[in-house]
Structures are given as structure tokens and as C-alpha cells.
């Protein structure tokens, strides 16, 4: 299949994907014959029971892992055949990640954490400072720039995580249970932020969650069960 036949409207195209993990002699079939298209600009929620393979699918879309079989296209790039080095460079340019446990570097301040992805770009220190300031302003944490993660609340840490995810202005933002460790109020703030990023800046977002309250904010929800995607939850 030619790289250019991918539909113009679909930013993410997952086709015929299988993912098998090996644990000792045992094969774990996590995804089977899975297809998914995410149009550019969509806010998609990915739901499903724990252990159903949500993170696995998100990792494939984010170029953190390769499918056992099938293809993954994002933008014009086919990810499943790229080398490790090429994938790393692709991730740095095209995708932002938001993690359930924020994954901030504890010894760096908020602004240094946000700056990390910019170290992979040719930007000068002055330009990097400008981008960091903008990203922190977007998440409403300019006043916390010099704070270390341990001095921030969970909600604030996750907003720093989102700032780090958007600081390079990626087209695609991948969030793995971004509210999973937050209380309702902090979770709502994070969801407001993601919704605003989607609506006002046109970010394409794929968000893994098992919270219906969170998926309600998305424009579309798909369900992962026994390795396949459906548009309705099982039963």
C-alpha cells in the first residue's frame, strides 16, 4: 500500500493490527485484527476494562511500540516500519504524551520539565524560554514556573505534564488516564484544559480512560474489549 493513499481527513489510521506479548512460554494476544481511524481535530476517548489493551494501543499510535502485525499510519508516516532512532525523532516532532502519574522529573522545576522536549529541537535557549512561558500560560501555571513537582498538587502536576505535552505544538496529543490519579475537581480542570486545546487549538487528542465522566467530554468514544474495538460498551 502506498504511503500517500491514506485518507486526507484521517490523522491516525490503524489497520489490521495484532499485538502479541510473550511472557515465558505463554503468548498473550492483546489486540487482534484491530482497525481505527482518528480524523484530524477529533477528541477521542478510548475506554475498556483494565488489562484490555488500551495503553498498548495508545503506545502503538504514539510510536512507543510496534505491532506484531498490521500497519499504523500517523499523518503521512508509517510507524510500524521505522527504526528506533527514526521513531524517537518522529515522536519528538509529532506527538505529545500525558501520563496518569504525570512522570515529571522530580529534580527539575516545572519550567525545566516543560522545556525537556524542546531540547530535541534546534531552538535557541531564548526561543525555548518563550515556548515554555507560553505553554505554562496555557495551562494557567505561569506563577508555578520555578516550583518543583513535589511542591505542586496532583492537578497542578498534571497541568505541567500537559504543558510539556504541548510545548512543541504537536498535532497529536496522547493521554493515558490523565485524570486517573486526580480527585473530581482537579480532574475536571484537566478535562477542561484538554477540551479547550481541542476546540481552540485544533489538537487531535486520543485519551485512554475508564471514567465515563471523562469520556463524556470527548467528541467520540470507542470501547476496547477482547482485542477488538466497538462503538458501544459490552452489555
Amino acid at each position, binding site marked *: 500500500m502506498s504511503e500517500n493513499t491514506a485518507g486526507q481527513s484521517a490523522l491516525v489510521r490503524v489497520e489490521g493490527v495484532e499485538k502479541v506479548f510473550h511472557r515465558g512460554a505463554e503468548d498473550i494476544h492483546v489486540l487482534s485484527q484491530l482497525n481505527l481511524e482518528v480524523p484530524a481535530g477529533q477528541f477521542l476517548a478510548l475506554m475498556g476494562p483494565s488489562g484490555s489493551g488500551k*495503553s498498548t494501543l495508545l503506545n502503538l499510535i504514539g510510536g512507543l511500540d510496534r505491532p506484531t502485525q498490521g500497519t499504523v499510519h500517523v499523518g503521512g508516516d508509517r510507524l510500524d516500519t521505522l527504526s528506533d532512532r527514526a521513531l524517537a525523532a518522529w515522536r519528538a516532532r509529532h506527538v505529545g*504524551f500525558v501520563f496518569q502519574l504525570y512522570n515529571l522529573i522530580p529534580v527539575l522545576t516545572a519550567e525545566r520539565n516543560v522545556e525537556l522536549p524542546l531540547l530535541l529541537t534546534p531552538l535557541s535557549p531564548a526561543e525555548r524560554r518563550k515556548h515554555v512561558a507560553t505553554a505554562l500560560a496555557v495551562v494557567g501555571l505561569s506563577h508555578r514556573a520555578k516550583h518543583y513537582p513535589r511542591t505542586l498538587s496532583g492537578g497542578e502536576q498534571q497541568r505541567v505534564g500537559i504543558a510539556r505535552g504541548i510545548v512543541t505544538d504537536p498535532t497529536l496529543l496522547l493521554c493515558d488516564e490523565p485524570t486517573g490519579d486526580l480527585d473530581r475537581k482537579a480532574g475536571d480542570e484537566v478535562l477542561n484544559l484538554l477540551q479547550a486545546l481541542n476546540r481552540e487549538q485544533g489538537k487531535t487528542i486520543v485519551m485512554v480512560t475508564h471514567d465515563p465522566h471523562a469520556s463524556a467530554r470527548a467528541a467520540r468514544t470507542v470501547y476496547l474489549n477482547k482485542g477488538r474495538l466497538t462503538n458501544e460498551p459490552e452489555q
Partner: protein
Amino acid sequence: MAGLLNWFSQVGAIAKFGLMSIPQRRGAVSATIIGIAGVVLVLVGVLSIAAGFRRTMLASGSPDAAIVLRSGADSEMVSGFGRNEARLIADAPGVARNAAGPLASAELFVIINLPKRSTHTDANVPLRGVEAAALAVRDHLTLTAGRMFAWGRNEVVVGAGAAREFAGLEVGGTIKVGRESWPVVGVFTANGGVAESEIWTDARVLQDAYHRGDSFQSVYARLNSAAAFAQFKDALTSNPQLSVKVLRQSEHYAEQSEAITRLITTLGFLIAFLMAIGAVFGALNTMYSAVAVRTREIGTLRALGFGNGAVIAALMIESLLLALLGGTVGGGLAYLAFNNLHAATMNWQSFSQVAFAFAVTPQLLLQGVVWATLIGLIGGLLPAIRAARLPIAAALREY
């Protein structure tokens, strides 16, 4: 260009992160630093014995003094020539002269057995026969008790080192030479040099006592200057009547000290090597724990696009810095503990005793640092590779 700079900032960011997390792992980290310091301390300490010994041996001879042996002889023991050859050597160009003639002493020596003061068991002592110029061809030779032996008489003077070590070696004492007893009439020092370990008498007296005819084993000569050595050596080696080996005294003593220096050096390396194996495991342990406590964070950085090379480089830097710190501590301790430490006695072949001081030289310290660096490299590499090869998805699942 920007790419390279950014690569360095990536490495810097990860390395800074690692170094700042050291307080969380201070137990393993200090054990590693102490282990590496121990290796360097022992290595530098043992090698400083060899370096100090060698330094003393080098100090035994000055550069404007020469020793001549038969060609092919490694030591005076196996060297030999007759009166004629000895005269040709003494008259060669380059040899300094005074009113009495050339400053050259044709010498021979035998090994005799004397009881040690400490154990009353017999041990070897060199008994050297010298000519009148013997005092002039050596540096800093001083009589500290009694008088010089009389020429043509069965009398001896003894080096201060030998006097300390052996019974009967004091003014008024005697030594047994064959069936006779020879009086000790004086004691001399030689600035701590090798001669202090010897007993001296008239060369002709010794030749007669040991039926050596008119033969010698070496000629010691004082030259006009250090630069005159080349002229002296060329004259002797190009003379068809002679087949000799010409050395500066300093070189000769260095050569004589080679065997023991090599022995000590080999021992030092062996001990340090065994300790280094232990230190490598310590460093491995530390760096594995450094990687383990940061698995998720390193996974996160790699997810953001940080390269494996940057991860490996940063972890290696961390390991190297710890190793260098250990090496510096070990080298510093070795310097404080061993430099100029005076050693008592050293028994080796014909040397009954050589007094010397340990010498922690800059070269030894550099060697210690090189060892520390190697330990750091080996100890850091496997954990760094593991950190870079762990699948990112697996790293991100760690809690």
C-alpha cells in the same frame, strides 16, 4: 551544530537528573566510592614502595660518574678483567684527574657470611676491594667513626647500613675472612646509597686473600662532567683491546633495582586487580540501582524522543564522576599516608639493607586515576545499556 549542542543538553539534562538523585541512593554510592578509593589507595601505596626504592637507587650514582663492566655482564658478580684493561679504562679520555692520577677505582668483590644482629643467623654481605680513588668516584662518602683502612693491611671499613645489620661490624670488632680475623677500623655513610650496605678493604689485599691474581670486576670512574660520558664511552667501546660495557652509575643502579622493582610492581598490580574486580561489582550494583530507581523517568524521557545514545552517555558520565571521586579520594589518602614514609630494611641479593622512602609520584597518581576511570567505565556500561534497551512501554509501566 544545533543538533550536537542539543545532544549535549539532552545528556546534561539526564546526567543532572542522575547526579541529583544520588542522595536517595547514598548508601550504595558511598560504598562504591570507598571501594574505588580503596583500589587506588592500595595500588598507589604498593607502587610507591617500588618508586621510592628506585628513586634511592638512582640517587646512589651521579650522572658524572661511570661504571665499566665486561661486555655482556649484568652485574659486577659476573664481570671481570685484568690489570691492563683496568689501566686502559682509567687512562681513557673523559676521566677526571687529580695530582695522584685518574679518578678511577678498579674494584672486585666477594660475598661473605656474617651473623645478623637480630637473629644471629648468617646472611650475605658484600666485601668490596677498592683502590685509592674509591672515595672520589662516589658521592657523599663520609667516615663517621674510626679511620680509613690502611693500604696493604688486612683491615676493613664498613658501611653504616651493614654495621646496623650485622654483629661485629663496629670499630674494634672483627670479621672472619677465610681462616683469619680482620679488624674493623672505621664506619662510613654514603648518603643512604647502596655502598652503605657493603664492607670495604684494599683491592690488592682482597685479591691475595681470595687468590684472584690481578683481576678486577669493575672500574668506577669520576668523569670531567656529565657530558664527558659520551666521549668516555665511545673511547672504550671503540678500543679493540677492550670488550666492555659502559654505564652511568645512575643507570647501573637503576638496572640493579629492576628485579625488585618489578616484583613489587607485579604484586601491587595483582592486589589492585583483585580489589578492582570487587570494585567493578560495587559500581555495577550502584549503577543498576541508579537505573532501577529511575526506570520510569528514563522511559519518559525516551518517550519524549531522547535518544538511547544520550541515555547511555549520561549514565556513563554519572558512573565516571563517581569513579573519579573515588580515585581522587584514594590517591589523596595514598599521598598523605605513604609519601616520604621511611621503610626500614630490605633484603635483596647482595644488598643486606637499603634504606629508602616511599614515593607517591604524579605518575602513580595518574595511574590511580586511570584505574578508577576503567572501573567506572566497566561498572557503568552494562547498566547504561540495560536502561537504553528496556522497551519504553515496559519502562513506563513501572511504578
